[in-house]
């Protein structure tokens, strides 16, 4: 998965979103060890302090845990990961409805069209 950044928002926020996405999609499986900060920073081409801040956010969100000796691991709590997955789904759904509203579709029409496309 490529790291991508937009210009309008803080880099650490975008990093933590993309890290969370990797956890949700299983690229970093539950309970697995996360790569060290420096390695992640080099991979994403960002400052290590920025990456550190993004990881701290993951911890705050409960998606990762810092161990004193073993670095960072992905949470083993399936509930937390599922909740994050649902939050991402929500974002996609909202984006869909917003885009359809722009095109002049009512909410109901958007639902109907999605159902039609899904079958």
């Amino acid at each position, binding site marked *: 998965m490529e790291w991508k*950044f937009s*210009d*309008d*928002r*803080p*880099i*650490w*926020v975008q990093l933590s979103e993309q890290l969370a996405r990797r956890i949700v999609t299983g690229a970093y499986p539950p309970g697995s060890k996360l790569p060290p900060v*420096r390695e992640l*920073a*080099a991979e*994403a*081409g*960002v*400052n*290590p*302090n*920025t990456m550190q*801040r993004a990881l701290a956010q993951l911890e705050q969100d409960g998606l990762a845990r810092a161990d004193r000796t073993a670095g960072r691991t992905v949470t083993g709590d399936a509930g937390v990961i599922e909740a994050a997955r649902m939050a991402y789904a929500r974002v996609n759904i909202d984006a869909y409805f917003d885009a359809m509203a722009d095109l002049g579709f009512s909410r109901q029409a958007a639902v109907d069209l999605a159902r039609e496309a899904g079958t």
Partner: protein
Amino acid sequence: MNETLVECRDLRKVYGRKTALDGVDLSLGRGRIVGLLGPNGSGKTTLIKILCGLIQPTGGAAAVDGRAVGPYTKSIISYLPDRMYFADWMRASDLFDLFGDFYADFDRKRAEAMCQSLGVDPRDRMKTMSKGTKEKVQLVLVMARQAQLYLLDEPIAGVDPAARDFILHTILTNYNEAGTVLISTHLIGDIERVLDEAVFLKEGKVTLHDSVDGIREKTGKSVDALFRDVFRAQPMEGGAF
């Protein structure tokens, strides 16, 4: 060890009638990567040269690690000048010998490893190298020191975008974590993600000093976009005579 690594107070430099630095106040902490950003002629190189002890300020004071610029500060500063200064008959390996003699903190093994990962053969002579390769060799020399302050004057100016990424990656993976890296450039878009902090230098004055994400949070713009706003050249307005 004090928290502040670099401290400039009311630093001034005048060349004849031209003022290069007009009262610079600047404090830099440790373990940071800082962008010194400004258009051509804003005083970036002058400031770096003063910190290196290569030129004397006209007024004000500069200290590194709590000491006035002098032999001690030179020993803890690794400097990448904005131009080439090697004899072109030299091989990269000759330069390693030279740096090994000059600097106690030069790590030759690391320099060789960096050359390898950058695809540079240390046995090649400087004159046979492309501009980009020469810049890589210079960077290797500078980053292979365990310095406290790295002063990089336009390290990415003359190389193609792929080499730029490589150079930034080299800086990111090789700087001493307790050390601070000060990078001067006007190519901000390329290095923004690598920086902790940005310092805007305009006509010899510091006009902004903030963290990159702080700037993004406050302005909703990238540092690059903000730079373009701040330093947009004012077009000549005709007809007002």
